[in-house]
């Protein structure tokens, strides 16, 4: 299934007052995982190109939709902020507001398994290995 929304429209809306909101645990996850304490912090972060290497994952139907006659789709993306991988899911509601359903750290991203600290230590270990001493 292709993405339901234009990603740029979502990014643009996050920069406009009252056009996007966070629901469920997304505000708390953004706080705990990314240090973005307020809803405004999250929206400003997104609107100011904070989502690096955003990558479309999939689109699913919003299961809790009370009006099943009009299905609402939810787009999911992975992204990075620096070295930290994240996961984002959003939809456009019938009230014409962008709804951020998920904004959290996604540590299982296969693209970067090693943390920078571990990568650096692996390099040191390699440099100090016996074969290098000879």
């Amino acid at each position: 299934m292709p993405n339901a929304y234009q990603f740029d429209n979502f990014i643009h809306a996050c920069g406009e007052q009252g056009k996007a909101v966070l629901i469920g645990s997304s505000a708390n996850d953004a706080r705990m995982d990314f240090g973005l304490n307020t809803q405004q912090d999250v929206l400003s972060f997104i609107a100011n190109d904070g989502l690096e290497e955003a990558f479309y994952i999939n689109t699913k139907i919003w299961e809790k939709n009370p009006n099943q006659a009009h299905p609402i789709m939810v787009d999911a993306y992975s992204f990075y902020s620096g070295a930290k991988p994240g996961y984002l899911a959003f939809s456009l509601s019938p009230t014409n507001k962008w709804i951020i359903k998920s904004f959290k750290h996604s540590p299982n991203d296969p693209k970067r398994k090693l943390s920078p600290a571990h990568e650096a230590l692996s390099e040191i270990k390699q440099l100090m290995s016996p074969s290098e001493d000879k």
Partner: protein
Amino acid sequence: MNTLCPVCGSDALTTSTKKHALTVIYGKPAEYNEVVDTCSVCEESGDFSDLNDATINQIMKAAKKESATNMLDYLSNHNIKMSYMERSLELPARTLARWKAEDCSAAGLALLRIIRTYPWILEVADDSFSQPTASSRLVEEAGHVLKHALPRKVERTELNVLHNNNTLQVNIQFSSDITSFPDKALEPAFEQMIEGNV
């Protein structure tokens, strides 16, 4: 005007509060009561009346001010003088005293966190951020971290860093009275160090 659910547009909302603690870097957690609106039609929840941001901003402002004081006190207790910090970082005199007594900007707070975490960065700054000093201090501090992290079975650790304009020489030595480790798990390994202590 009634608050509406931004997801489905219903006004059938119930409001509750939940205690939350926000992490404050180098400070005490800041507690606040989070307002949670729950829609009885679509069952989604959130801060639909947009009340939490103002509360969070208010408590974080006070908590960050306190953390700035904590960081400056810590540095002072470790014999790092404000005048030294100001001189090495080319800050106007009394800047840090002003941050402590009055308000500390977001940029000031970020700088204090860096100095509090890596106090030796001041020595690098004091040497005009020269690359050899930056490199040697970094490696020296990395050596200290490794030294402290080495398993107790290892003794006589020694770290030497020599540098000039062209070369950087690092020598970390450690030895043990135990000639062979009875268990593979007891052998010093960098993974153990970073997981256990860094």
